[in-house]
């Protein structure tokens, strides 16, 4: 009996202690949500680790795959446990429209809006990187059926006769619809005008139909190099940094095809109603400072969104970025307003199409 009481008291004390440390953590920790894999790792090395060392604020990392349902549910239920979140452009716009992202006060970020790339300083998102959706193949494991030829254009990606084999594609409509139209002969400057019409959408889906049976769909960015590396696909769409890191860190012989690279930005955003607004802004200010931002390119081949960060980047890193002139010859910029308006509706149509 006596002993039981003692252990009860101890357990109670431990529980109280836990509560106390939780309360203390709440003051000096923030939760930063990002896309996982090589990308999260680059953020950890470039921002999180030095930030934690400098300020003592603990950064708790979480991963997601870009779905906005969880954010909306958090804000609607008033139980916001994420603070800073790395979002794509359509989420940054939709989050503003639907009120689940905080409007950014650029004075508190400490950087003037005009220092960011065009389209980089949104109302609810501060651009952090410039990345590109590209596709790649494994030069170390070329299929015999290709007869020594290698794909060089987006049209080749859709050409099952010339380049047979499975292809990896992102399990979302983004870029897939654009590339389908480009492969079907639409000029990259007109892609979004065509996509805004019902016939254009039908045309894009019809083109995707032609390769549908040969597509392996990936959901998280890290899966793309994985599928290519283990030979499950002969070519795959991917975010350029993911392919680059597999080459650099794992010795893979992946070749990036830069044709019609889809240039896009990722943004830092703040969850509406976070109890740690000040801490979130402090992190945003740190991560948006040019000298800090320049560090990230050393860990993944994404470009900085801040004009002043570019001079800090070494020459040998610059050539692998999506913004290098030789990579940009056929590039197009992803139309954020198109996807902000249509990502949900097209996502539904895309999923219905997938299920058939």
């Amino acid at each position, binding site marked *: 009996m006596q002993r039981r009481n003692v252990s009860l008291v101890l357990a109670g004390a431990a529980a109280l202690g836990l509560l106390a440390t939780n309360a203390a953590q709440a003051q000096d920790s923030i939760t930063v949500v990002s896309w996982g894999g090589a990308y999260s790792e680059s953020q950890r090395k470039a921002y999180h680790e030095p930030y934690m060392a400098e300020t003592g604020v603990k950064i708790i990392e979480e991963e997601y795959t870009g779905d906005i349902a969880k954010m909306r549910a958090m804000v609607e239920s008033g139980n916001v446990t994420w603070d800073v979140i790395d979002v794509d452009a359509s989420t940054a716009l939709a989050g503003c*429209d639907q009120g689940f992202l905080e409007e950014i006060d650029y004075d508190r970020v400490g950087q003037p809006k005009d220092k960011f790339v065009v389209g980089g300083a949104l109302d609810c998102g501060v651009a952090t990187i410039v990345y590109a959706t590209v596709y790649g193949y494994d030069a170390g494991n070329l299929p015999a059926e290709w007869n020594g030829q290698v794909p060089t254009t987006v049209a080749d990606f859709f050409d099952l006769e010339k380049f047979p084999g499975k292809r990896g594609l992102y399990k979302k409509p983004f870029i897939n619809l654009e590339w389908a139209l480009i492969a079907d002969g639409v000029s990259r400057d007109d892609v979004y005008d065509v996509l805004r019409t019902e016939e254009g959408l039908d045309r894009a889906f019809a083109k995707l139909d032609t390769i549908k049976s040969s597509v392996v769909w990936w959901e998280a960015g890290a899966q793309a190099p994985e599928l290519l590396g283990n030979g*499950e696909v002969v070519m795959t769409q991917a975010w350029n940094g993911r392919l680059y890191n597999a080459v650099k860190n794992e010795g893979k012989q992946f070749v990036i095809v830069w044709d019609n690279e889809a240039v896009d930005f990722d943004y830092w955003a703040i969850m509406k109603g976070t109890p740690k607004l000040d801490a979130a802004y402090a992190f945003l200010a740190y991560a948006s400072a040019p000298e800090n931002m320049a560090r990230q390119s050393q860990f993944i081949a994404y470009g900085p969104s801040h004009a002043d960060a570019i001079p800090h980047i070494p020459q040998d890193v610059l050539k692998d970025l999506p913004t290098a002139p030789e990579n940009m010859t056929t590039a197009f910029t992803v139309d954020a307003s198109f996807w902000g308006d249509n990502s949900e*509706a097209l*996502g539904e149509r895309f999923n*219905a199409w997938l*299920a058939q």
Partner: protein
Amino acid sequence: MANVAVAAPAIMVDGVPLKLKLQRAERVRKLKAIGLVAPLFLFILVSFAIPIGVMLFNSIYDPDLGRLMPRTAAALSEWDGSAVPDEPVFEALALDLRDAQKAKQAALIGRRLNYEVAGARSKLIASAKNAAKMESGPYKEAVIEADPMWGEIGTWNLLKRSTRKYTPFFFLSSLDFRYDANNAIETVPEGEAVYRDVFVRTLLVSTTVTLLTLVLGFPLAYLLAILPARTANMLLILVLMSFWTSLLVRTTAWFVLLQTNGPINDFLFYTGIVGERIQLIFTRFGTITAMTHIQLPFTLLPIYSVMKGISPSHVRAARSLGAGPFYAFWRVYFPQTMPGIAAGCLLTFILCLGYYITPSLVGGPTDQLISTYVALFVSAQANWGMGSALGTILLVATLILFFVYNRLVGVERMRLN
């Protein structure tokens, strides 16, 4: 007749009537019983009954438009649906849209309309932005001019339907039905229908897996039951080892095994059984193989424990009476294993209906079961209505199957040992 006197209430030594004492004792016993049952009862209530209730409710609950467009909802209640409504309704619409735009809620209205009319979302957002700029009426012409969608009767039928608090829409949509412009229910055209196929697929995959586990599990269970204890226990440990390993781990193991350059393909290729590597992963074959492996112990263990309880003397008696080995097995032994088969198969079948992670990792886009769509709606699209309706249909289908099963096999015959 009256010679049995009505007995006076028995009074105990302490002056309390016996009846009262018995009642008290009974009450204490009841309280104890309730006390013992209460934790489980509360747990089931909180973790099972309430969530299921909320799900059933959410599958018909559709409050967004009623809340965001109160004026339009009120104005439309009088409307008979025969022609495009008049100015007062348009005024209500314009005012509602203006308020929604200010409160940053217009996208929510668009989202709801987009469930039924593709492309309505962006049109509504544009209309709301437009409405916010309008100072005064008349609204009707201006609104229709900005977007001809508002001059169509279908749009207004949709608005009238979706401003009601409760809707059958999610159920209709889950069964590939929809409303046409005149509010009549029609089947979704061939190219857009999804869910009927998925429900049929879910039942088909679950049935196949259940049968396969039975075909594989029954002989093994029989072997385990007749082998000497030492050997049987060794084999049983092997079965249990896989049973104890997490579902995710076993699925990932199959992911590795089934790859185009994985061990199974390597074996088939290098031994010359196949000329070129075959697609195993992201196929129906892969899904069923992995699910069968994962479910095998669930079918096997109940059969095994029932078999352990069957006395060997029954078969011996049959043999001594002249039955051949197969006849004795089939007519004497097998019928006694039925309760175990019934329990194992039901367990596997019902678990299969809810499979999510295995089809999504080793299956292709056309091998996904209904849970994938529930997850898609709940976690990716925040569409609780569709998620709940699909879940409810699955629940009802499961209950109906259970009922049929009960009629055919009899739940009371089901035994786990």
